[in-house]
């Protein structure tokens, strides 16, 4: 028995790994009635050898699937080992991993067996057992099966912290080509439903303290990068649409890992576009935390992200007329726009300058990357002498002074600003 469970875990964790989301954030569930677990600590309990955070037990209930999406390892036509957990097996794994402090909770997804509702019912049942029978208050992320009934989606929201539906392919044309059995409408419908429910719960929560929680960590989605020839502009526009239209908490970008000889897709052996993926995450951060609009990052005349420099520097170089920024006078929002100054440094600058004007040395100690910021700022004792230099010259200065950073294209670090 224990051998079979080991094999199942290997198959069903392997099949789930292409979903890059492993976040356990956004929810603040307390441990109630002396039970097990809570959420809100946002802990990565380990990291994979490719440097990704492992926070949740991320598995499929089964990798049997009636669909044949070309980009997916679990597709019907793929000749692979299949397996399925029982409801109780998933519950036991979750509880036992959690008690040993391996994980923050469960991220459960599934191939579609029989039909959408049949699959969704089982996912919901697992969440329900964890919450009701085990008084488990850790994190639960459930994948919503497109085309599942609203009643089931609603029930899922009562037990889960986060729900997600992966659009996967950012463009309509791409989706038609690679997953002809799927349609965008089926995926958009539950997203809209969730958005409305989330807003409703929030409103009711203001009026009644007893309003039951409904997916407190909201909903998220994932886009696969580099499987369907889409441009960065298309991806960022799609992401922006999801953030605005469905109040998505997060959009994830997953560089396509070639798993098929299908002619419609990049062949096996093609490198995973990790550098591009990294630039997309940086763009995402610019939109969420730095006050950038999507069309400032990519637009008709600039549809592709630069791979050799980050999107914030790229924007600055295209908008040299906005600089220099005066560190001691200008608004926080403007200081945030300076390459080499992140959110933390910008906050410190605004706090520290109240005590007296800041010099370059102060900025260095605060943690500003002077070798980049110096082309875009002025401060006490430091006049901007590069203001009339050409952007391409400044770019080459910066690239030369920080070789290692921009040449290691595999790095996935996000704090690069």
């Amino acid at each position, binding site marked *: 028995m224990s051998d079979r469970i080991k094999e199942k875990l290997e198959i069903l964790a392997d099949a*789930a790994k292409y979903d890059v989301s492993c976040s356990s954030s956004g929810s603040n569930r307390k*441990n109630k009635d002396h039970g097990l677990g809570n959420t809100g600590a946002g*802990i990565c309990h380990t990291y994979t050898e490719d440097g990704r955070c492992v926070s949740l037990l991320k598995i499929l209930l089964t990798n049997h699937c009636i669909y044949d999406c070309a980009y997916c390892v679990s597709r019907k036509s793929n000749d692979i080992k299949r397996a399925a957990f029982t409801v109780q097996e998933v519950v036991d794994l979750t509880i036992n991993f959690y008690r040993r402090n391996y994980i923050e909770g469960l991220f459960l997804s599934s191939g579609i067996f029989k039909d959408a509702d049949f699959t969704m019912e089982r996912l919901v049942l697992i969440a329900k057992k964890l919450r009701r029978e085990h008084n488990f208050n850790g994190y639960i992320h459930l994948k919503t099966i497109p085309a599942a009934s609203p009643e089931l989606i609603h029930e899922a929201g009562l037990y889960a912290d986060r729900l997600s539906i992966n659009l996967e392919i950012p463009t309509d044309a791409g989706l038609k080509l690679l997953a002809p059995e799927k349609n965008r409408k089926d995926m958009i419908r539950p997203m809209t439903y969730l958005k409305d429910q989330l807003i409703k719960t929030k409103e009711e929560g203001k009026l009644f303290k007893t309003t039951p929680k409904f997916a407190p960590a909201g909903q998220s989605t994932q886009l696969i990068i580099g499987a369907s020839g889409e441009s960065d502009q298309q991806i960022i526009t799609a992401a922006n649409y999801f953030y605005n239209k469905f109040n998505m908490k997060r959009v994830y970008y997953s560089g396509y890992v070639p798993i098929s000889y299908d002619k419609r897709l990049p062949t096996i052996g093609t490198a995973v576009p990790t550098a591009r993926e990294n630039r997309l995450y940086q763009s995402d951060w610019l939109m969420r935390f730095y006050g950038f609009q999507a069309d400032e990052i990519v637009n008709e005349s600039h549809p592709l992200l630069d791979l050799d420099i980050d999107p914030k520097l790229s924007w600055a170089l295209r908008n040299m007329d906005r600089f220099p920024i005066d560190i001691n006078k200008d608004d926080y929002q403007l200081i945030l726009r300076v390459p080499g100054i992140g959110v933390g440094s910008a906050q410190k600058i605004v*706090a520290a300058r109240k005590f007296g004007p800041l010099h370059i040395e102060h900025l260095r*100690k605060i943690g500003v990357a002077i070798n980049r910021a110096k082309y875009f700022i002025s401060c006490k004792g430091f006049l901007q002498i590069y203001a009339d230099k050409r952007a391409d010259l400044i770019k080459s200065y910066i690239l030369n002074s920080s070789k290692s950073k921009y040449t290691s294209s595999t790095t996935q670090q996000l704090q690069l600003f």
Partner: protein
Amino acid sequence: MREVDLYFDGTWEGILTSIFEMFEYKIMPLSLSHTAARQKGMFQTAHDVVSQQDKADRVKKGLIEKIGRNGYLELWHAFLSELPDVPLLIIRLARHYFQSEQPERLNFGHDLVLRLKKIVKSVSRERHRMKAFARFQRLQDGLFVALIEPDFNVLPLIRKHFQDRYADQRWLIFDIRRHYGLYYDEHTTSEVTFADPGNLANSRTLVDLYAADEPLYADLWKRYFKSVNIVERKNMKLHLQHVPRRYWRHLHEKSFGLDA
């Protein structure tokens, strides 16, 4: 103002008492070190601080009034780093805070303030790592045991986290470097030490006490760790940045460091 080398007993109370006496005796501290480091009769300028609860309490209250609870906690967290320059840093900062009209805690242009923030950040990172990397192993009697070896003395800082989270199981988290632990009996958490901590310090000896299902779940976790890896994306540099080698000794998925 007299320039003096201060000696204290190494406790937090001792630090707070030092701050009190610094003002009481109008002392300008040149250093603040553990009494153990004191060489008898060497210096005319030495002053021995004896920890006193009432003085410590008054300083604590004063600090909280002056710089708020968070400001006070920052100083305490820095103290837990056990870094050699920290005691002096703390009392010099306390003097600076008390003497200034401004909320100096936010003066990121000031060298002492910046040094403090840096230490507090490292301590906070270590605290977070222990929340992440402490791994419980279940013993036959149902006790969950985790052995840790943090760079800084962060056990007091993770107490509440584990108590809130694992409210319905008995657990022990033991710092094998500092020879003390926290034990939770499903109601309260208390500090514990052992007559012979040497035994505990070796995770191998725990194996004999394992609950029947412990090896299975440890093995499942290792397999899980292997299976979620995407070989095509392998990036060991990034991996090591997140999980530095010195932590491997207590992680199953790294075979307790034996793979290395």
